[in-house]
């Protein structure tokens, strides 16, 4: 198993995974600013690049949500600052109804793809896969670097699309044709939509380059003794996520490509029998529903691409901070595999009211509700891990607990939506908005926060401020529940999503109070993120120097030096002798035994099944 390791200084270092005596990494090579911070091929630097880009994009998307929440809560007010901020779209302090849709669209796209897919997987797969499996770097540093730069380009194009004359794409983050195919139907479907498609294709290239690299690294570059059943659950989660991405993202490319053809070459994949702008179009024979099948064939796996890394991070944080082995390690892996498999055969639950054959609908009901079983197993395992634990409540642990709470709340409403007979009345209402913001948005963001607080010492060699972390957690969890829980009520009352104002029907008038409440929470939540940003950037420069293993954790990354070195470990790569969850083992000297400690050194705590 010879692996070529092309490092940025140009020399190729071959190292054999099974031969750890041999390490010829030179640490004397000099790096320029450009090779170190910009075109870096070091996974630790790339991870930080992903994280910082994602944080910037997240603030942008959050800002958008604050603007549209103002509109939803106070539809009759004017906000003069809007005009100075967004110009013609906020004329006289009134948000333009077309631009409202653009904001919702770009908010959703950035959050789902740039923040929770690129940001979450990109940051933590990059940081943790090599460090936790015991590799010098990713299988290919070059592809890894390209993965980041495609991601950056994609983010830039998406950002740039905000500034064009006709406005950015505005057909919703799912961009269903014909709306997204016809500029006559909505202004955002002109150049804005073209840029959206360009950005997404760049994004998919990034996701694929990253994904194959993650898989290759986990499969090939594990250190001696790191069998698959000794991998931390984080790495399992990243591996499965990467596989999901590799299998599903290409389908989105296909969907996007056919849309491009329909938009610019007069084909009729998605279009048929359309009369718009006073004239009939020539397109005939296509089906808009085909697009939805292709989109959701990616779209549903995508929600797990977002969620699984967060669950992986939470597993690791919970076990470490509870000072207790994760309950049911194998069941956790098994349920992730089952979820991953099932996630490919449930996409139709997004399409129950498209006129789908009712029998086909029944099949999707069945597969959809099956997903709830492995999800439930995961929740029970988390709770069992906490039972009789010895819990240290670091900010990361609080966020991980928040994640489990959201996963329960949002997963349960999925059971209702997965029931086609009930979904008819709830589809595209705020009930769905509540469901996926809680189960996907909030869970995954909380997983990301848990990851940042927990591994910040490993990323930057410094600690984040604990008190600010607590403050951030408390404001955020209260506000997130405050924003999304009441949306269930609005949805049950029958309010459709993506409405610029709920003025069409008098029956909705009584709900304005709830909308105001939601918006107040949303604005506070947004402001609270400034605390996080401050803590993050301040700690990079001024945080307390991190100790070697601040959380007394078992995994390999905490054996690498605090000051990053190229190749991760200055000497030989450590060897692994046990699984990562030997916390609070009876009779052991301390309440944790790192993976690098051989059983021969711990006769007092060894158990019959250990070898």
């Amino acid at each position, binding site marked *: 198993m010879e692996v070529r390791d092309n490092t940025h200084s140009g020399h190729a270092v071959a190292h054999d995974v099974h031969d750890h005596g041999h390490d010829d990494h030179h640490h004397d090579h000099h790096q320029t600013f450009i090779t170190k911070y910009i075109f870096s091929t070091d996974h630790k630097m790339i991870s930080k690049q992903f994280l910082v880009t994602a944080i910037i994009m997240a603030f942008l998307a959050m800002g958008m949500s*604050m603007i549209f929440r103002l509109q939803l809560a106070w539809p009759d007010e004017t906000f003069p600052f809007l005009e100075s901020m967004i110009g013609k779209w906020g004329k006289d302090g009134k948000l333009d109804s077309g631009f409202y849709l653009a904001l919702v669209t770009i908010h959703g796209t950035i959050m789902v793809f740039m923040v929770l897919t690129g940001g979450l997987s990109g940051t933590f797969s990059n940081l943790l896969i090599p460090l936790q499996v015991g590799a010098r770097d990713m299988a290919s540093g070059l592809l890894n670097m390209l993965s980041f730069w495609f991601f950056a380009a994609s983010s830039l194009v998406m950002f740039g699309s905000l500034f064009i004359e006709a406005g950015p794409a505005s057909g919703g983050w799912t961009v269903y044709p014909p*709306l997204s195919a016809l500029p006559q139907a909505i202004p955002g479907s002109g150049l804005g939509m073209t840029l959206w498609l360009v950005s997404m294709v760049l994004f998919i290239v990034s996701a694929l380059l990253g994904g194959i690299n993650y898989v290759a690294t986990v499969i090939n570059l594990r250190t001696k003794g790191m069998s698959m059943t000794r991998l931390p659950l984080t790495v399992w989660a990243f591996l499965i996520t990467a596989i999901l991405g590799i299998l599903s993202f290409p389908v989105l490319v296909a969907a996007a490509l056919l849309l491009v053809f329909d938009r610019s070459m007069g084909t009729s994949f998605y279009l048929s029998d359309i009369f718009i702008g006073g004239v009939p179009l020539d397109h005939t024979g296509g089906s808009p529903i085909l697009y939805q099948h292709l989109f959701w064939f990616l779209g549903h796996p995508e929600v797990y691409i977002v969620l699984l890394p967060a669950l992986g991070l939470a597993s690791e944080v919970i076990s470490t901070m509870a000072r207790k*082995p*994760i309950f049911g390690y194998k069941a956790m892996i098994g349920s992730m595999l089952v979820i991953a498999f099932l996630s490919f055969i449930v996409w139709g639950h997004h399409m129950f009211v498209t006129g789908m054959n009712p029998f086909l609908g029944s099949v999707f009901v*069945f597969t959809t509700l099956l997903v709830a079983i492995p999800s439930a197993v995961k929740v029970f395992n988390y709770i069992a891990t906490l039972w009789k634990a010895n819990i240290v409540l670091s900010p990361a642990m609080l966020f991980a607990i928040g994640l489990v709470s959201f996963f329960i709340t949002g997963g349960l409403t999925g059971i209702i939506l997965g029931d086609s*007979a009930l979904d008819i*009345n709830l589809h595209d209402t705020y009930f769905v908005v509540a469901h996926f913001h809680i189960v996907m948005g909030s869970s995954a963001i909380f997983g990301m926060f848990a990851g940042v607080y927990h591994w910040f010492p490993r990323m930057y060699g410094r600690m984040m401020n604990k008190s600010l972390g607590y403050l951030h957690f408390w404001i955020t969890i209260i506000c997130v529940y405050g924003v999304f829980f009441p949306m269930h009520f609005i949805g049950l009352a029958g309010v459709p999503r993506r409405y610029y104002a709920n003025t*069409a029907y008098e029956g909705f008038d009584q709900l304005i109070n709830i909308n105001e409440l939601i918006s107040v929470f949303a604005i506070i939540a947004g402001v609270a993120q400034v605390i996080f940003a401050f803590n993050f950037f301040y700690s990079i420069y001024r945080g307390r120097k991190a100790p070697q293993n601040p959380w007394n954790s078992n995994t390999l990354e905490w054996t690498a030096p605090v000051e990053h070195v190229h190749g991760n470990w200055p000497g030989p790569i450590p060897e692994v002798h046990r699984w990562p969850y030997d916390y609070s083992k009876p009779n052991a000297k301390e309440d944790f035994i790192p993976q690098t400690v051989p059983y021969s050194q711990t006769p007092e705590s060894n158990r019959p099944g250990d070898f």
Partner: protein
Amino acid sequence: MMITLLLGTLVVIRLMSVSQMASVLSGEDEDVAQKRDNSMNSIGLMLFMVVGLALMIYMTIKYQPFLLPVAASVHGAETDFLLNINFAVIGVVFFITQIMLFWFVYKYQHDKNRRALFYPDNHKLELIWTVVPTIVLSALIVTGLREWNKMTQGHPDDGMVVQVYGYQFNWITRYSGPDNKLGRSYYKLISDTNPLGIDYSDPASKDDIMTKGNEMHLPKGVPIQFIFNSRDVIHSAYFPHFRTQMNCVPGMDTRFYMEATITTNEMKGITKNEKFDYVLLCNKICGVAHYNMKMTVVVDEPAEFSNWLKGEKKVIDAAPTAELEQNNTTASTVNTEVAL
């Protein structure tokens, strides 16, 4: 936004001093949670859980009148019953799991002198909590699918055929008349005077009635077979009170069978709201005025309904003679069956 920024800066300045204070006050590894942090935060979590669950119950009760408006269709009453069963089941699971989650965190706070229980797995437990959810979910699947089959398997010739036609940004309804058949239509025939593109050469179109004005009438107690179409982009015909929704897709027919059970007048009494009206909303993003794409729906007693319908003009009576005479040979039905 100004206020937000201002608040933001204030908060940050305030917090900088908090963090500095914290560093002064405490000792060495102060960015790792201490005993005090554990107890404060776990008390916080308990409070959060108790207050949160209480508020949830309170809000559910308080907003009861607006949640799920009274169902006014046959299947709607049944799905509401099903929905409530589902809510009961997930409610129980929700309470049990959330309480355990927060309670354990509170109960098992860190203590230097204690070790956690080394308890990596228990196959029996895991089997139990795989099998029990499976059984519960199977029950939900079976009841859900039974209802789904019932509501989707209308016979194609059943019920009064009514077309609901969406376009940016309004709705048109067409009644099929005594023959209970809609005349063919084709999108290239659409004009100002023939907004549905009806092919007048089709005899089935002779008795079709298209309603003017922004109002749609339905008879109470008569099964209705809706046929949905769209002229431009996807719309979704959503009748919240009837628990009915179906996408309107250009180039394709979609259908839904339902029966209204409560007239508008009766509903005014039930809701104690003189101004009550049923509504048809567009529930698929379709353009800038999506939020305004609605139609008032009136449910009448069957006799009232017939009277109202008699007062409406037939499509051919409203059509200009030029169009009537144009015997269009290109016209064809657009009857795409949905493939499996």
